[in-house]
C-alpha cells in the first residue's frame, strides 16, 4: 500500500499549506523520503488548555497492512502528561487507533487531528495516567492543570523525571 502512502503524503502537504483550520499541525511527513513507513508529526497544544503554547512530537509507524490496519502512533516518551497518554512511553489510548474501531477510510492526518482533539478533551474513564484521571474525575481542574504544567516545565517526580 505504499502508493496510498505516497498519495497521502502529497494530499497532506497540500492540505497543510492551504487549509488554515490545520494550522495547529506544524508538520506531518515521512522521516525520510525513501522510507514511507515512519512518519513524524509536530502539533501545537490546543489554545485555552494547559497544553497551549507547547509543541509536541508524534511518532507514527505504518505497517505493511495499512490502511487495513491502523497506524501505530505515540508521543515522544516523557514529553506529555495527559490522562489518556502513558507519560513514560508516550502510548496513546484512543479508540480510533484500535483495530476494531479503525476504518481504512481514515488517513494519517485524521489520526493526528483526533489526537489533537484528545488533548483538549481528556477522557478520564479510560485512563493511562491514573493520577491525572483522578483529579479530573474529582473535577479538581486547577490541580490537574497545575500538575500538567509541572511536568511540561520539566518537573521531576519518581520515574517521571525529565
Amino acid at each position, binding site marked *: *500500500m505504499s*502508493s*496510498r502512502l505516497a*498519495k*497521502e503524503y502529497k494530499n497532506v502537504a497540500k492540505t497543510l499549506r492551504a487549509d488554515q483550520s490545520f494550522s495547529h499541525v506544524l508538520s506531518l511527513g515521512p522521516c525520510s523520503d525513501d522510507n514511507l513507513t515512519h512518519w513524524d508529526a509536530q502539533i501545537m497544544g490546543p489554545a485555552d488548555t494547559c497544553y497551549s503554547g507547547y509543541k509536541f512530537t508524534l511518532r507514527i509507524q505504518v505497517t505493511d*497492512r495499512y*490502511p*487495513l*490496519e491502523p497506524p501505530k502512533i505515540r508521543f515522544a516518551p516523557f514529553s506529555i502528561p495527559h490522562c489518556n497518554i502513558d507519560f513514560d512511553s508516550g502510548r496513546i489510548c484512543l479508540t480510533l487507533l484500535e483495530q*476494531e474501531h479503525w*476504518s*481504512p*477510510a481514515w488517513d494519517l492526518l485524521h489520526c493526528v487531528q483526533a489526537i489533537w482533539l484528545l488533548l483538549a478533551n481528556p477522557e478520564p474513564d479510560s485512563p493511562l495516567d491514573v493520577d491525572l484521571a483522578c483529579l479530573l474525575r474529582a473535577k479538581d481542574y486547577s490541580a490537574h492543570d497545575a500538575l500538567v504544567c509541572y511536568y511540561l516545565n520539566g518537573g521531576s517526580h519518581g520515574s517521571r523525571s525529565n
Partner: protein
Amino acid sequence: MSCEECPICYDPLDAAGCRLLDCDHKYHLKCIRRWHHQSQDLKCPTCRKPSQLLEIMESQAIVDLKKFSGVNWLLSEIAEPVINLPGVVEESNRSWSSRSLECGICGDMGPEINAACTGCGMVYHDRCLRVLQLEVGNMGSNLFCCNCHSPLRSSEEPIPSASAGINATGSSIAAAVARVSPGYEAVNRDTVWYEVNESWRLLSQLQQESRQLAESNHKRKIQNHVRRVLHLQSREAPLGSQLTSKDRFTDVNKIVSRQLYRLSGNIYRPETIDYDQEAAALVLNELANFEETSDVH
C-alpha cells in the same frame, strides 16, 4: 470520465469498482472485500453503515454479502469475474471461515497454496517452505509442518476426499462449502484433513472455473466474427443459398468456429489474426466441400 478514488487504496476507481447498495459508497471490490474479511463485519469504512448488498459496477451483478461471505471474499481474491457465476450467490446462509486457507508462514491465501499438514491441517505455500528451508539451513524442514512437525503433503498428490461426483457449478460449491462449518473444532485428524481437502478442492475448482470463463470469453469473440461472416455469405448465391436452412447454418458455424479456435490456440488475438478474413475463407471452403459431396450423391 469520473476520477473518483477508492477510499481504501486511493487509486482511481475503474471497472473493478463496486458499490455498497445500502449507503452508495464505492470501493474496489478487492479493497472492500479485504476490509470486510479483516474487520469480520460488513460495515462501510466511510459511514459505518452495515451493508448487505454490493453491486459490481461493470457487470451490475449484485452480491449478497451476508450469505456466504467467506467464499465471496475468496472469489474476489482469486478471480473477480467468477463472482458473477450463477449460483454462487444463492443457497446457504451459513458463513464459512477461510482461515484454514491461509499459508501458515506468510498468512496470504490464494490458489498457489500447495502444501498441507497431515496432522493439524495447516496449509503452506511451497515457496514459503523453501525459503524457510534456506533460512534455517535444514534441508528437511520443508517436509514437516512448522506447527506440529507432522509430515506435509503436496497438492500434486491425489486428494483422497469426497470430491468425486461434484460438478463445477456454483451451487455445488455452495453445498460443499456449507459442509465445512464455522467454529469447527479440530477433534480428529480425519475431519481436519477433510477440511483441508475441501479447501483445496474448492480452490482448484474456482481456478478452473475462472479459466473456463476466460476461455468462453475468447470463444464468444471468435464466434462473433464467424456469425457476421455467415450472415454476409448467406446473402450471396449460389453457395450462400445453403445457409438459408437453419441446420446448415448452425453446422457451418460450428465447424468454422472450431477451426478458428484451433487456429488461434483458443485465445482471441485480433492483432495477429484477421478473423473476418480467415472465417470467410473457411466458410467458403466448407460450403464448397458440401457442394461437392452433395453433387456426388
